[in-house]
Each structure stands twice: as C-alpha cells, then as structure tokens.
C-alpha cells in the first residue's frame, strides 16, 4: 500500500499551478486534501508522475456569497465550510449533509472542490451540486470556463475537465428564503459511502428530488405536487421505473426500496423544514 514514486511540486500561486499543468498535462494530478487521491495512489489505481500540491496557495482558500451563489475556492476544507456560522442560513442543504460526509479527520483535510473533482456518484457534495444546478469554474492557462453540473459529471469518476484545466472554485446557487430542504442517506457505517442518498428541495408546489448512489451519475427529477402523498406517489413510480445499479453492496431491489423510504422521509423533512432547527 505505497504510492508509486512521483515528483511533488509545491505550487505557490494560481499562475504557478497553471504553468505546471500546461507543462505536465495528463502526467500530473492536483493534490489538495488528498482524502480520495492518496488511497487511489496507494492502491495504484493511478500513478501520475507529477503531483501539484495546492495547499499553500492562499488565493484559493476563499469562500463566500457573491450575487446569488455560494462560491467555494479549491483550497477550502470541508470542515471550514461546515463550521461557517452563515452556512445554515445560506446553504441549508449543505448543513444537512456535512455530518454524513465521511468522518471528522477526513473533513478536516478534504476539500469541497476535491470531492467534486473526484465525481463519485454517491458523494453528498456531488449530489448537492447537481441538485442545486450549480457550476464548476475550470481554468487553464488559455481560458476560463464555467460548466454546469449536468455537463461536468459525465459518469462515475468521470468529468469534462481537460488535463490542462483545474477547478478554481465551485458555485452552489442560493435558493429563496421559503425553500424547504431534506436529506437522508443509508450506508453500512456512519460516514461510509452512501448506498442511496436522497436530497430534496421544495419551492411552493415544485419538488426537485436528487438521488445519489443509484447510477453512474446523480439523477435529478422534478415534479409539481400539492401534497406529500402526491410526491410520494411520484417517487414510488420513479423507483419502479428507473434503471438502478446492482452491485455487491446492494441489490437493485434494496436500492429501489431505499429510494422510496428515504425519498418519503426527505420530502417530509423538506415540507416541515426550518433552518434554525438544523443541528
């Protein structure tokens, strides 16, 4: 369980990162928190020749609300955002999710953008970005582009990032004050990978429902329903009709069952939602 040898480059500024990516491209990987990348290297699933450490680039350690989005820079740790006093009001969905994301020592080191870059379809932050219809800011030496979540996540661990680009920041759109949120997931141990994760946004009679862990990408659905029973019926039909992943951790039958039960709970939570009651 040791990584193959690599050259570590300590980046000191954003332009330095871009120069290094331009030079090494596919042979290089960015390392921020490393909470996913280090195991990947240790198991030799990947063995890049160069790692670019961005932990000392201060300009990437910023987050805040600009306009109607919460923008989170590449250097921001998950625990920093989790402990931000305004998070509950600004982005309640993330407040609901953080306790479920791995464990304290992992969140202390892992970054928000790193989780997005890894694009695990059962990851909570990937689900949040897809459900909120957020965006990823990709920068290369030549240009900067903003890619919407649905165009960014291409499959399990696959994104539309080019090898000379890096994620400068991600944007989580802020919803109105009357929106309700719900989130539930099931895993085999608290903080482990979600077998199924469900997140819900309720705005008036419009329900946006996202499922993580059921497919290679997060699936997002929308429906208009005037009562909880109607939205539950919608989820029951979805669970029956949707292609659902089957793997050694769970049968597709279990996943369908979890879509229905966790979906109903998350919708109920969104209906009764009050941001000041989030633990």
């Amino acid at each position, binding site marked *: *369980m*040791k*990584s*193959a*040898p*690599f*050259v*570590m480059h*300590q980046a000191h500024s954003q332009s330095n990162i871009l120069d290094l990516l331009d030079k090494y491209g596919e042979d290089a990987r960015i390392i921020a928190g*490393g*909470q996913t990348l*280090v*195991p990947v*290297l*240790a*198991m030799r699933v990947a063995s890049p020749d160069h*790692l670019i*450490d961005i*932990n000392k680039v201060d300009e990437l350690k910023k987050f805040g609300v600009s306009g109607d989005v919460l923008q989170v820079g590449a250097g921001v740790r998950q*625990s920093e955002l989790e402990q931000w006093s305004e998070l509950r009001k600004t982005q309640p969905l993330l407040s609901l999710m953080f*306790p479920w994301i*791995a*464990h*304290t*020592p*992992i969140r*202390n*080191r892992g970054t928000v953008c790193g989780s997005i870059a890894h694009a695990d379809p059962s990851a909570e932050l990937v689900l949040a970005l897809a459900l909120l219809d957020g965006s990823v800011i990709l920068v290369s030496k030549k240009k900067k582009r903003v890619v919407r979540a649905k165009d960014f996540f291409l499959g399990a661990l696959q994104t539309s990032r080019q090898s000379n680009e890096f994620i400068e920041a991600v944007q989580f759109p802020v919803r109105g004050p009357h929106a309700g949120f719900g989130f539930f997931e099931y895993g085999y*141990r*608290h*903080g482990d990978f979600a077998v199924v994760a469900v997140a819900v946004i309720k705005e008036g009679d419009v329900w946006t429902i996202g499922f993580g862990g059921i497919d290679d990408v997060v699936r997002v659905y929308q429906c208009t329903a005037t009562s909880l029973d109607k939205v539950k019926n919608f989820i029951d039909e979805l669970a029956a009709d949707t292609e659902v992943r089957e793997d050694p951790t769970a049968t597709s039958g279990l996943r369908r069952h979890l879509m229905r039960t966790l979906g109903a709970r998350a919708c109920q939570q969104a209906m009764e939602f009050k941001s000041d009651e989030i633990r």
Partner: protein
Amino acid sequence: MKSHQVKLTLNGVEREEVCESRTTLLDFIRHDLGSTGTHSGCEHGVCGACTVEIDGQIVRSCLMFACQADGSKVNTVEGIAKSGKMSDLQNAFKKHHALQCGFCTSGFLLSAEDLLRKNPYPTELEVREGLSGNLCRCTGYVGIVEAVLEVATARVYQNGGEHA
C-alpha cells in the same frame, strides 16, 4: 530517491529528516522519526488507527504525505502522557476494558480527546458518531463509549461545570 527535507514539531520537539515524496506522514513518524505509538492499520483511510493531530486538527496520517506536513506541529499518542503517567482518558480506557489488543487505541485516544475538546458534554449518540471514523475489532465499542462518557463527566465536575 530521498529528496525532501521535512522539519516538524513532534510532541513539542523539533525533528528533521529527509524522505521520499511518496512517504506518508504515518511512515515518516514511525520509520524516520521512530515514534511507533501511532499505528498503521489499513493505510487507505478507513480504520482511523493512524489518527494524529496536526496544527490542532485531527487527520489521518496515512492520507497525507510527509512533505505536506513540513513546518507543522504534530501531536501523537506519545504526547498525551508525556510525563510517563497515564492521562485520565487512558486510565478510563483501562478501567472500562476499552481495549483488548490495543492496536486501534492510539487512534481512539486522539479522536476522543478531539471530541471532548469540541463537545465537553457529549451524549452517548454523539460519542458514537464522533468516534465513527475509528474501527475496533475487539471490544464492540461499549467500553470505549463508557470510558469517554465517564471522562467527560469527570472533567466537567473538575471544571465546576453546570451541565454535569
């Protein structure tokens, strides 16, 4: 090739060694600095045996490279009982049979100290959630949870807290 000069403060003592870029902080602490209290379990971030504290925050030492810890303050289990006398938490672990083989214990102690610092009055559920990142295959966790809860109560009494 050993090319990285890493200088860090380990349990209050400045230490310096040269290592490879791929050397994890865990291996650096154990092999290069010779402090074997921190244990190497799964080496991919699942078991929590290698938990250490860096600049006041607990992290998995198997999930970062030693060269990334250059210049930081690292505390390990050896720093908990520097005088050679066991801490209150260590004594409670002993009393409640919170360990059998002891392999996971150094990680549990670091995680429990961090939990009690952030939340001095934890409920049983909060202790269980707070320690969920550490695996123990011997005890079934009951003794560990009891030990942490006992120390929490004792410390609150000691500090004249009103929540006890």
